[in-house]
């Protein structure tokens, strides 16, 4: 029998519907794959095998009667940032030790409503703060992809590194992820997978551990464009419990995948041509434009003049919101508690022991920029710059651009424990230089693998769309996926 884990989500869905195999078989195959691979890849921080098989069994009963939801019987991995009732939910942090919520996040509730099966919780950068998945309390995730002929371990990107690695290594049919500055799109690019950050407000933030509330957005990572579209259709939707959730009908995103790009205008922002950008990324970008042109799109040079200020503004806005959101971890309500001589001592010792270095650094920056005397100079200034960044995009869209094509990342996956990056926090932050503008403007962005570098490592392109026009992104990403016609999957070594 073929290895069921190798099927795309769409293929698995068809196989289940046609009764070629059962969800119990499919789920069992994934659990077996996880058991074999996870000691090496560290993609899962908790595996919920028993629950998975129970859910699969319930799905099989529905499927046997020709019933079931859009994702009936499909096994998924869930990023540890999503609250899952009675199941490990720690944002890969020590400070949430033992936390098992009494509630289920809206996004995961939507997936279970549609019949999906939970395999377990996926590793990530602590509180989604990182671009390499090295800040997790549970240790780094290893990228299943290695350079051709090499055996050095590479990072899977972050913060959704566990999600991307698990999808690439066939340890789930698809995964949930979140993106505050690039945390879906950068790991997707590093692992040869597809990831979309929807428009802000498209997916409910309710029940998802908060990092920077005005930027956080949930989305899927999967092995094909069609698979991400199928997942998005289930994850999205209006939720009165999230005050920034948008009351808009959810389109059938999968129906847009084969729509093509004929007649679309694709913008090429000149400010994304960075100094020192590797020639192979430059070449890939041009190649992507050629592919879109060949299918009937028009390419137009555009200017997004405030691009270079997005990352510095982000490193004020995101830490400021994080310092506020993470104030709740105090050793009283949940998680870790370190006793002290009085209550302030307890707070300080608990937070010193419970948060990792990167998280503490960002809370400190956030606390500083919000402190008396600095608020206007930093926070208000950054929010004004954010208005300008958003206006840049609005001007481009008003001028007739339907979507914007850029590289997804400034490099391919790098090594675990890169010393130059560890010594300079700003160098690590630059990973998000192409993705962070999209969060600042609240727009949808998709990363799709498009080519390989000289070492055989996947490189991704990013498409940025108009607010709530994810359909155009799926259609254009599909053209790139089809034109690239390349197998980006890893050669199993684990």
């Amino acid at each position, binding site marked *: 029998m073929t290895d069921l884990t190798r099927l795309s989500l769409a293929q698995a869905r068809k196989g289940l519907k046609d009764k070629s195999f059962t969800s119990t078989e499919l789920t069992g195959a994934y659990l077996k794959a996880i058991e074999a691979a996870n000691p090496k890849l560290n993609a899962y921080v908790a595996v919920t095998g028993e629950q998975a098989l129970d859910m699969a069994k319930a799905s099989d009963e529905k499927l046997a009667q020709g019933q079931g939801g859009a994702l009936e019987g499909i096994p998924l991995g869930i990023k540890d940032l999503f609250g899952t009732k009675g199941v490990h939910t720690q944002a890969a942090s020590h400070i949430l030790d033992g936390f098992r919520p009494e509630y289920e996040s809206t996004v995961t509730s939507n997936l279970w409503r549609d019949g999906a099966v939970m395999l377990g919780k996926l590793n990530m950068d602590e509180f989604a703060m990182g671009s390499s998945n090295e800040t997790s309390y549970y240790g780094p995730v290893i990228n299943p992809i290695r350079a051709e002929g090499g055996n050095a371990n590479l990072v899977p990107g972050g913060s959704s590194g566990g999600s991307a690695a698990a999808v690439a290594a066939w340890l789930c049919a698809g995964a949930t992820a979140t993106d505050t500055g690039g945390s879906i799109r950068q790991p997707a690019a590093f692992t040869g997978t597809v990831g979309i950050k929807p428009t802000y407000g498209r997916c409910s933030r309710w029940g998802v551990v908060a990092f920077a509330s005005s930027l956080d957005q949930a989305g899927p990572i999967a092995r094909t464009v069609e698979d991400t579209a199928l997942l998005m259709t289930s994850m999205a939707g209006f939720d009165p419990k999230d005050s920034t959730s948008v009351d808009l009908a959810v389109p059938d995103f999968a129906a847009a995948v084969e729509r093509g790009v004929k007649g679309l205008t694709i913008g090429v922002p000149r400010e994304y041509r960075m100094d020192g950008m590797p020639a192979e990324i430059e070449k890939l970008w041009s190649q992507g434009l050629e592919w879109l042109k060949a299918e009937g799109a028009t390419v137009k040079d555009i200017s997004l003049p405030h691009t270079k*200020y997005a990352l510095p503004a982000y490193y004020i806005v995101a830490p400021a919101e994080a310092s506020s959101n993470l104030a709740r971890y105090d050793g009283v309500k949940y998680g870790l508690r370190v006793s002290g001589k009085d209550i302030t001592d307890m707070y300080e010792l608990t*937070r*010193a022991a419970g*948060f990792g270095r990167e998280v503490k650094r960002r809370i*400190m920056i956030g606390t*500083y920029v919000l402190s008396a005397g600095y608020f206007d100079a930093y926070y208000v200034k950054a929010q004004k710059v954010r208005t300008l960044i958003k206006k840049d995009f609005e001007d481009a869209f008003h001028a007739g651009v339907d979507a914007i094509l850029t590289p997804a990342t400034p490099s391919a996956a790098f090594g675990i424990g890169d010393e130059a990056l560890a010594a300079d926090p700003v160098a690590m932050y630059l990973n998000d230089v192409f993705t962070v503008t999209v969060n600042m403007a609240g727009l949808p962005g998709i990363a799709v693998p498009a080519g390989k570098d000289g070492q055989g490592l996947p490189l991704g392109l990013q498409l940025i769309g108009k607010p709530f026009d994810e359909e155009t992104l799926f259609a254009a990403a599909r053209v790139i996926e089809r034109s690239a016609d390349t197998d980006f999957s890893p050669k199993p070594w684990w």
Partner: protein
Amino acid sequence: MSVDAATVKRIGRLARIRIEEEEVAGYQSELNAILGFVEQLAEVDVSGVEPMTSVTPMTLRRRDDVISDGGYADKIVSNAPLSEDNFFMVPKVVE
């Protein structure tokens, strides 16, 4: 703008994170690297620009001011490191 050692300690206290003496220098240089990086925003002319308050044009929804949730104190305290009779237990705050 850059931070000195005393400021690092003050931020630590405001953030309720204990910063040990030997950690101060490390935080100081990291925070200054980040503050140096964000300094470039000074170049941007923002005169007449409104600060962003909502990335999607929307007004916050309102609901009737009635109790719509609650009544499960046991669930609220179920993850607490220390609780008694559905209360969170903390060290003595008032003498």
